[in-house]
């Protein structure tokens, strides 16, 4: 395990918080709507073989500039800015959920800027017979049920402990603002990109054929948010793609199944 260190860079949208560590070929991690990255075991594991870079998206953590980003177009241009700031030409990308969607949006527009991709339970598509479940307006406990298999996982347990904050301020008991604020900010930033259309881009599906990067889609068989058909559709329509289904895993498997994900990612990116 190689630790990642926090740093800040001045991007055109504002100050960006990032975590960086390890050495080898560059691998960019794009986090989910949960804003995870600091201390993530899967990244420390991968840092043994890659130079891992985990920028925090504007509106999450301590990164600024969300007011400059209205949609996925803006998000993609922000990623290009980060590539320039970090001196990246054609890195590998590992994206989870919302971050997987961003990786897809980048790869359909600028296929030459992504070497290989691993997408973990990505959102981004709309499938009429397999819609993405509702994530907004849920209590943390309800979200934990959707995102984790193991409700005893420390993050899942913490979300259950926050049950009092439902997003319904009328039902709230007195809650310390510092507990609520990071989640509030993360959901607000996610809403800018994914409230309507809900967590998808209607044009993405017909653009998937433009992707040139070999792509591995990792799906949790028990994902309570994104049905398995999404991963299957991506694999069918991205020219060079394969699917890995993790049995007994749910949505936030970057947290819940770090060892297996690290192995899958390392093997795929090194092949």
């Amino acid at each position, binding site marked *: 395990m190689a630790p990642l260190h926090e740093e800040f860079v001045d991007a055109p949208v504002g100050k960006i918080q990032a975590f960086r560590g390890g050495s080898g070929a560059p691998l960019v991690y794009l986090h989910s709507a949960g804003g995870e990255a600091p201390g993530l075991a899967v990244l420390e594991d991968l840092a043994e073989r890659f130079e891992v870079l985990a920028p925090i998206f504007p509106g999450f953590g301590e990164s600024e500039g969300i007011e400059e980003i209205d949609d996925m177009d803006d998000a993609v241009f922000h990623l290009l800015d980060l590539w320039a700031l970090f001196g990246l030409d054609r890195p590998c990308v590992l994206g989870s959920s919302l971050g997987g969607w961003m990786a897809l949006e980048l790869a359909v527009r600028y296929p030459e800027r992504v070497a290989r991709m691993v997408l973990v339970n990505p959102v981004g598509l709309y499938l009429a017979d397999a819609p993405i479940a509702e994530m907004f307006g849920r209590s943390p406990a309800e979200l934990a049920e959707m995102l984790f298999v193991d409700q005893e996982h420390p993050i899942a347990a913490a979300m259950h402990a926050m049950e009092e904050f439902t997003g319904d*301020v009328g039902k709230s008991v007195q809650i310390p603002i510092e507990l609520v604020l990071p989640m509030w900010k993360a959901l607000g930033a996610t809403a800018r990109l994914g409230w309507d259309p809900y967590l998808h881009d209607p044009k993405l599906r017909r653009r998937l054929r433009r992707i040139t990067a070999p792509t591995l889609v990792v799906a949790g068989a028990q994902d309570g948010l994104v049905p398995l058909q999404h991963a299957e559709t991506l694999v069918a329509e991205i020219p060079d793609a394969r699917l890995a289904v993790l049995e007994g895993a749910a949505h936030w498997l970057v947290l819940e199944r770090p060892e297996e994900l690290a192995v899958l990612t390392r093997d795929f990116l090194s092949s």
Partner: protein
Amino acid sequence: MRFFSFHLMPYIGLDPSYDGPAWVTCPNQLFDPVHGGALYNRYLDELLYAEELGFDGVCVNEHHQNAYGLMPSPNLMASIVARQSTRMKVAVVGNALPLYDPPTRVAEEFAMIDCISGGRLIAGMVVGGGPEYYSFSVNPAYARERFQEAHDLILKAWTTPGPFEWVSKHYRIRYVNPWPRPVQQPHPEIWIPGAGSVETMEFVARHRYAYMGIPYFSLDVFKRTFGMFRDACAAEGYEADPLQAGWLVPIYVAETDAQARREYEEHLWYFVKRLLPGITIQPPGYTSARSLANILKGAGTFMLNVTDWDEIVAGRYAIVGSPETVTEQLVEALGALGTGNLLGLFQLGSLPADLTRRNLELFAREVKPALEREFPAGAPVYRPTAAAA
């Protein structure tokens, strides 16, 4: 002191076996159209009765896809009242601007009501409740931006000769040129309802509009809210006029305190337990961090959390009792808040027609004159000693 009769037009008779929220996902098969039609007509009669009883005006408001209030279009109700009344103000509190695209629709419809009423419209503009952002899929992260832009566009449409082109981030209209124009010049009086967002108070203070406190919190929360609003006006370099603030509160008057509670209590609990659940959902991005902090301060006192009658009385969630009790409590509360507009909800929850009418009559005959003596027009309303109590 100006007196308004505010109607929510609630759905009475919600299926007792249904125990979910009254908002967003409350199944619309529970709405009986024939019963709903009877309710609309009854409620319009109650609004029009206010003019007969000498109220200064009536208020209607906008909510969508819920059992709490059956007015997805308050403008329809206001236009009927405008046509069938002759003297009183007709306040639409308000139109949820971000839900209108293009928002010139609001400029048009408000001008229609102002024309029909001969200049009696009060134009309310509101960001819209949290549930509406779920019901409309309008992005809550842009609610404030859209509200601001829509407001600017409507005001320009009313005050600048058309046609002109409008280009802002969320709205682009090549020819803004609404017919009709409002009777009141340069524009109707503007009210903005708010639930404690700091940004909203600053906006109202800056434009010298009137701030209406959204109800169902304890009196202490309103004391802080209206205090913050007075501060916001002071920060703009002027002292808030009492008519720049309005307090919306359920009121019920009967012959005695005991009779009032006996007649009213079950209807209030129908409101609290059946119609309020779901109203306070806050969609992501809808509230800024600093406003969230302020709103959370009051959240624990929201009426949904109240379960016994003594709390209702102590927190002044509703003013209920004999004419003497109601007068006394209102004098104290209005002095503490400094609000020159009293917006009474004289029908609440499942309160039936006969009790609603008698409530309006007793208030108009016994309470209103006493409050008018206590707070003469033009005199200050705010009493720091009451606020400190």
